[in-house]
């Protein structure tokens, strides 16, 4: 019997010199592009998209970003005074959520990720709702704004939202709705989970009306990008799904909005999905209970502050003379009022009744749980 060959040391050595290179032909080419309009010094590096000609529009975006910026700081204070526990901030990343969500129409659907306060806010979800969720009250996910009623709640399980977003998009596709698309988000760390790829792969296969934005804030908890991937861009993950991936300066709200807008239009028109990597930086700790000084390089961190998204937009608006110190101060005062109000609402929310732990389990509560519900009721009502 002729035995199969196991060792070929010498021959391999020869082969190595020649190699397979000569026997290859290129069968596919891909490239990843990157979008930027406004660089960190507020230089306009490309002709602005139409919407950005409208200074009032940009001012709205600025105001929203400023509000979320200050909300973050407020929450951190609340944490320090023991009023709230875990909260994942969006400091430095305001342009990603605000830019992407401002490209949505009311008919579109948003599938947020756990750090999605900025996009949710644009969508009409109130800050006290998001805060209530993080304080530990399920009612925070019962979004009240009509625009957000069909939006999915914040998921805590990293990446689990990507198949959901594909499912929502699939419902739109099946129903032949041409005016709708789905927008979802994920972190850089989230791109390591299987669910991310499964959703991507399906979105490509079924040409789903789906836009996925990666908030690449360079950190997944304490792990920097290099712990998650060998990829030079996360946008290139789209190539594995067979559709376009594109990078965008995530600190340039104009670029984020324009890129997401175009991708949503493509999706609504049946052109299929797009993956957008927004490059930004997490200027806050992972959450309020984390301490970034333990693992973040000080110099890198300080540099990141220089590229922070409010700076360049402020400069542009100042050049356009629609914003100055005085008007920004007025704006800030208004903002702070809204924040105080929202915080007050969240902190003063009365507890849910004890029975509520059963009341949303099923449409109809089974007998077994009815008995338990009665037990809980008796126990906690008497005290």
């Amino acid at each position, binding site marked *: 019997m002729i035995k199969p060959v196991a060792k070929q040391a010498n021959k391999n050595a020869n082969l190595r010199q020649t190699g397979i290179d000569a026997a290859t032909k290129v069968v596919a080419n891909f490239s990843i592009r990157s979008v930027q309009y406004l660089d960190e010094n507020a230089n306009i590096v490309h002709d602005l998209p139409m919407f950005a000609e409208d200074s009032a529009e940009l001012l709205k975006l600025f105001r929203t970003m400023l509000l979320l910026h200050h909300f973050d700081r407020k929450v951190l204070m609340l944490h320090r005074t023991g009023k709230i526990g875990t909260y994942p901030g969006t400091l430095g990343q305001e342009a990603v959520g605000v830019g992407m969500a401002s490209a949505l129409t009311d008919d579109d*659907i948003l*599938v947020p990720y756990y750090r999605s306060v900025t996009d949710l806010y644009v969508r009409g979800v109130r800050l006290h709702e998001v805060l209530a969720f993080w304080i530990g009250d*399920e*009612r925070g*996910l*019962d*979004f009240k704004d009509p625009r957000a*009623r*069909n939006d*999915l*709640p914040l*998921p*805590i*399980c990293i990446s*689990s939202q*990507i*198949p*959901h*977003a*594909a*499912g*929502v*998009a*699939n*419902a*739109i*596709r*099946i129903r032949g709705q041409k005016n709708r698309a789905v927008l979802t988000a994920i972190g850089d760390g989230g791109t390591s989970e*299987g*669910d991310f790829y*499964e*959703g991507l*792969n*399906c979105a490509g*296969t079924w040409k789903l009306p789906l836009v996925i934005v990666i908030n690449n804030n360079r950190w997944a908890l304490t792990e920097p990008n290099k712990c998650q991937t060998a990829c030079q861009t996360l946008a290139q993950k789209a190539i594995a799904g067979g559709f376009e991936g594109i990078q965008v300066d995530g600190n340039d709200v104009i670029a984020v909005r324009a890129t997401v807008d175009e991708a949503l239009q493509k999706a609504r028109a049946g052109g299929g999905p797009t993956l957008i990597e927004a490059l930004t930086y997490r200027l806050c700790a992972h959450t309020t209970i984390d301490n970034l000084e333990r693992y973040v390089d000080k110099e890198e961190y300080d540099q990141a502050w220089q590229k922070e998204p409010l700076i360049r937009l402020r400069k542009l608006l100042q050049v356009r003379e629609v914003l100055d110190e005085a008007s920004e101060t007025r704006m800030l005062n208004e903002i702070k009022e809204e924040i105080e109000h929202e915080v007050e609402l969240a902190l003063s929310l009365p507890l849910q009744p004890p029975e509520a732990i059963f009341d*949303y*389990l*099923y*449409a109809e509560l*089974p*007998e*077994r*749980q009815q008995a338990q519900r009665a037990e809980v009721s008796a126990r906690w009502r008497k005290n």
Partner: protein
Amino acid sequence: MAAITLLEGVNMAIDHEMARDINVVALGQDVGKSGGVFRATDGLYKKYGENRVLDTPLAESLIVGLSVGMASQQMRPIAEIQFMGFIFPSFNQIATAAARMRNRTRGRITLPMVIRMPYGGGIHAPEHHSESTEALLAHLPGIKVVVPSTPERAYGLLLAAIRDPDPVIFLEPKRIYRAVKQEVEDNGEAYPLESCFIDREGTDITLVSWGAMMQETLKAADLMEKEGVSCEVIDLVTLNPIDIPTIVESVEKTGRCIIIHEATRAGGLGSEIAAELSEKALLSLYAPIGRVTGYDTIVPYPKSEHYFMPDKDRIVDEIRKAMEYH
């Protein structure tokens, strides 16, 4: 009205609901063009088209996750997991998304979805194709778990599952997919999803089982009848919620109880039923509650599967032991 198999009962229920409600769609690996590995979705692709019967990529987490997304927009997906042994990649989507959406949004978003799958052993299938891990699912609040044991129940329970406003896991005992035929009318009548069936009344001992094990249980009851032991046989049908009151009532009458399931014994659903009885019917018991189950080992490959599987002989032995106990 033709006599149909359990498998055909499944098909008939899906067909019925797809015809009735445009929001009902079927999805899974190979369920479309080819009608599924067991043909549970046979003919539906042709009838309803590729937009309502979807061949998905080979990815279980995706299949359940897609269903969550679709159901969140008021569609009614019926997802197939090809075999219960392959449910694990989707466990996260079931446990953390499907089971919780209503609760975590305080009822804002609900998920009318079904995840159906063939389960259980006895057909000499390769590794992982014979699993019976229903206890893992029944431990998760927020979903329902249902198992039919006859063609007619398959039809009526699956209708109910599809119409249910919450996620239902529908386990199909593949060993009896084609074992029995029954005349079933396609009348659209659904069963409730919280009641067991008393398949045979008896006075001496209560036997509780579900799925393919019902066959062995009924055989054992027949054999014991000849020895003058009158068995009450309960088809559990719904594993979450379990119809404990009916079982308690039966055991209060008979004073003895044996639970029969294929799954591994430790932490199997037999334990849950025994625990409930030991709490609610302790003083009625003349004998320890018996459990005839798969052993606490990994489901063996086909050549050794018979050593593992409960059969009528093991049930008979356990009944005798209970009857002789004093």
